[in-house]
């Protein structure tokens, strides 16, 4: 009889005890907030008791992974204060003693270690599956060996240098060609130039103005 009464008390008491352990603002508990519609939009699944069970299982897995103890089970994760936002509180009890809670710091470590797996289990991200109080570790900045802008700069400067060199070479060649042209047939060119101008035909070569009439400037 006594055993029967004790058994009944346990059945009633255990959940009640569990409720005492898990409450809003529990010292060793965390609040979880899930934003399904933001993350998945139209493909959002419904959050129901099965999903809650899945969460318990995932958390148990995270605890197992962190402590490397195979004893954590779904019953060790107690959930409470569910809202339609989809947010709830949870606490973790020790597998050896169900009245003892695992300290907040240890739970945090476990969550951080398996955060990626937990997120992926629910098709969510750090932003849409929030553990309030556990800040996501920032991604390490990717530092490439050469900053990409230097590469583009190098290409542009290379092209500019090639351009400048080509310019200088072409102007040197032009100058040399001109000089050759002038020295080889200097006399002929002069006559040709003068004749050319007289006939109104423009010839190649520089028109040497030193040999023309400057009415303006010879008036004294």
């Amino acid at each position, binding site marked *: 009889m006594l055993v029967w009464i004790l058994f009944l008390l346990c059945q009633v008491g255990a959940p009640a005890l569990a409720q005492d352990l898990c409450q809003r603002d529990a010292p060793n508990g965390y609040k979880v907030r899930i934003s399904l519609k933001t993350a998945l939009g139209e493909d959002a699944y419904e959050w129901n008791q099965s999903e809650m069970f899945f969460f318990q299982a995932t958390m148990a897995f995270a605890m197992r992974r962190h402590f490397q103890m195979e004893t954590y089970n779904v019953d060790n994760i107690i959930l409470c204060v569910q809202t339609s936002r989809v947010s709830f509180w949870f606490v973790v009890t020790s597998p050896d003693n169900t009245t003892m809670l695992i300290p907040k710091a240890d739970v945090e470590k476990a969550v951080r270690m398996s955060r990626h797996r937990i997120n992926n289990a629910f098709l969510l991200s750090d932003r849409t599956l929030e553990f309030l109080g556990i800040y996501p570790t920032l991604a390490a900045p990717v530092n490439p060996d050469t900053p990409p802008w230097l590469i583009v700069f190098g290409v542009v400067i290379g092209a500019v240098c090639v351009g400048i060199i080509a310019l200088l070479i072409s102007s040197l060649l032009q100058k040399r060609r001109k000089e050759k042209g002038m020295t080889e047939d200097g006399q002929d060119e002069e006559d040709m130039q003068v004749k050319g101008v007289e006939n109104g035909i423009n010839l190649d070569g520089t028109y040497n103005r*030193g040999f023309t009439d400057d009415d303006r400037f010879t008036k004294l």
Partner: protein
Amino acid sequence: IQLKCLQVSNQDLEERIPSYEELEKLENEEAGDRPKWDNKAQYMLTIVGFCVGLGNVWRFPYLCQSHGGGAFMIPFLILLVLEGVPLLHLEFAIGQRLRKGSVGVWSAIHPYLTGIGIGSMCVSFLVSLYYNTIMAWVMWYFFNSFQETLPWSQCPVNANMTGLVSECERSSPVDYYWYRETLNTTPDIDNTGGLQWWMVLCHVSAWALLFICISRGIETTGKAVYITSTLPYAVLTIFLIRGLTLKGSLNGVKFLFTPDMNELMNPTTWLDAGAQVFYSFSLAFGGLLSFSSYNSVHNNCEQDAVIISIVNGATAVYAATVIYTIIGFRATEKFDDCISGNILTLLNTFDLPEGNVTENNYDQVLHSLNGTYPEVIQGLNLKTCDLNSFLSEGVEGTGLAFIVFTEAITKMPVSPVWSVLFFIMLFCLGLSSMFGNIEGVLVPLQDLGVFPKSWPKEAIAGTTCVLCCLVGLIFVQGSGNYWLSLFDSYGGSIPLLIIAFCEMVGVVYLYGIDRFNDDIEFMIGHKPNLFWQITWRFVSPAIMFVIFVFYFITKVQETPMYKAWNPESENFPTLEEKEYPSWIFAIIFILAGIPGLSVPLTAIYKCLRNRCCKKDNEFKQDDLNTIAKQVHLTDEATKNKPDIPETADGR
């Protein structure tokens, strides 16, 4: 004006300028070593490129929006017709007629007016210095656009990886990127902050690119403008199409063009419109004069002036529309983010299911919640989201290009492509304007004989570029941004007004409006009609004078202030208004005073030199002595004087 000094030289005006016969000969025989345009298209593209610059993209849209939107078009168009077109026609005509650069033209009209040319050269030099630094900034952003995630889209992580950099978190990633990672600004102009090596690299590459394009004068720029003048239009069209397909773009366009007729009563509107028309046409820089002088003598400069004005005005309006579609998109995104943020806060605080509060019922829900839980709502510090305030955020100058627009680009899909396109467009716009600025520096230097005649064009261009590059290193220091705004406000504003006014007065009253009319009749076949006569003689100089007086009074009355980026200031991230230190006034005087005062000072100097040497024939004698050296003489060819070589050499 009947001063004794002036009477002497006016008689010799005909001797200083080519006569009609000489011009015809030049035209027919194509004998000359003055460069020529390969075709009319090159000339038009160069002028369009010079006039259409960064100001059309980042100054005009701001003015338009802040002065009553569509209503601003009215003063802008009126002043374009009364001020812009006449001045443009004047510069084109006088350059084409006298066939010299700015110093050459003004010293030919009257030796005492050489100061106008020198003033133009000084202004062109000062503007070139800082304008190319903006090109360097554009190149920096361009180089950094070739990454999948643009570096200004997110804040960097701080040293111990616990969070984002504080300066960035308090302001925004784009602000941080501009002020810290690009400029590395110091909190005030007194701290120089040292040279920023990455900026020095970009600065050098900007000047090197410019050198390639201008090394042989219009021979090279004429080819470059095919790209630099046309590409911006292509990119603007691409952005327009992209912009119109984005959400919220029409909000921006509506905001831009909604007319507010009350603004027309405000004199500042008319003043800003006049100043914008003036600066937008790049008048008084000397570049337009130079470019026109390479034209054939009978080129229809009247038609050109009208076409260019229309193109310039239309481009300004087109660019404004494009810019504001993108700004409208950005403002709408920010507004949506703001509202979403508030909605999320409400949902989280009250544990309401997602989707209960949307943008549509936000106000109702907030109101009802405020009724039931007022203290909680107060404690939440919800942000007020106002679309209009987002639309009018800092959308002028470098702030528009490097902060607002880059932020908008990060929100667009395939951001790197848009970023690359945008900065190529800005670079082309600026480079084509730089061609004109540098032309306004190089040609007067050649006319003044600063460089030995034996130096080839490339050497002159190279030396000038190297010199400007070195002096321009001021702008790549930590405090460079403040120096740049200083140069922009004082070097590129007041002196131009003075020079343009003197130009008009010089041509109309000293050169003689009758002679000018005859010149135009010779060049294009008919005399300029009544509109030109009235505007040249009275209307345009009057408008210039009024704008100058108002600008001068406003600038002199206000204490010069500048806006500084100071992370330690109270209102960070709002820019802190600081007063300039006292030694800046010397710099301001040099920037604004020297080009402006060069007109009277040169006149006085020449007058004194003339008087003190007491020879009326001094000018002629100078010319005689240099016959043997001069090869630019415009004169007829003869074949009948075989003994001339000896006498020319002998002298």
